[in-house]
């Protein structure tokens, strides 16, 4: 059962870039070894936290999009919990939400087409009628 998850985590702000790269690559191997796949990695940069977390006022946000079963998330969360520089994380299942959004988008597109067609039909006869006097 494949599902799409979004994993957002915060690492401490004083972490070096190389260490962060290493951390992300180890997470990637964890996911792939648990028969999941990483769809995207987005570094959202340093941001001020809304409240203090482990005596830190800011943190580096990273967003991963993962596809796989729930066991992947389980393993990943266990790994994050024992990783010292990671100060906070959240996993959100997004496939159902994506499905819902696609449905809405399809509905809206269908509506747009319906409303666009009569307008185009009206314009088509009107345009030649205007042109004929100009050419004659």
């Amino acid at each position: 059962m494949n599902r799409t998850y979004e994993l957002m985590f915060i690492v401490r702000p004083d972490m070096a870039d190389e260490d962060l790269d290493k951390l992300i690559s180890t997470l990637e191997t964890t996911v792939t070894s648990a028969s999941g796949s990483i769809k995207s990695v987005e570094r959202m940069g340093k941001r001020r936290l809304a409240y203090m977390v482990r005596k830190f006022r800011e943190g580096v946000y990273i967003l991963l999009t993962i596809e796989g079963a729930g066991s992947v998330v389980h393993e990943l969360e266990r790994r994050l919990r024992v990783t010292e520089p990671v100060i906070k994380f959240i996993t959100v299942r997004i496939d159902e939400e994506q499905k819902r959004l696609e449905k809405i988008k399809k509905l809206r597109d269908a509506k747009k087409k319906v409303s666009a067609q009569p307008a185009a039909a009206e314009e088509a006869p009107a345009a030649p009628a205007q042109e004929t006097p100009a050419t004659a």
Partner: protein
Amino acid sequence: MTDETKAPAPVADRPSRPFGERSGGGDRPRFGGGGGGGRSGPGGPPREGGRKFFRRKKVCKFCTEKIADINYKDYRLLGQFVAESGKIVPRRLTGVCSPHQHRLASAIKQARNIALLPFAGRAS
């Protein structure tokens, strides 16, 4: 108690100025308007003309702007529906419709969990 003392005065005034009571009781929509009307008793529905100001009908921001995706990452959008104290602003104040408020509330809670929004107080 207040109704009893108020009720006789508009009734006595009625023959001389039938609609004048509206301006007199207008500042108090519930008791002034209701008591002055006579027909609708105390505690009844306030009369239409009793209210001087009218409230603009609040509409759901997500419905009008067609924002389908209420996401916890969009803390700027969510911040509009969080009070200074960090509380989620109730629907009756913002005018958000029920399904959207539901999504909004869960998104705000997720954002709080990942320190994008504060649990209490403004984001420090």
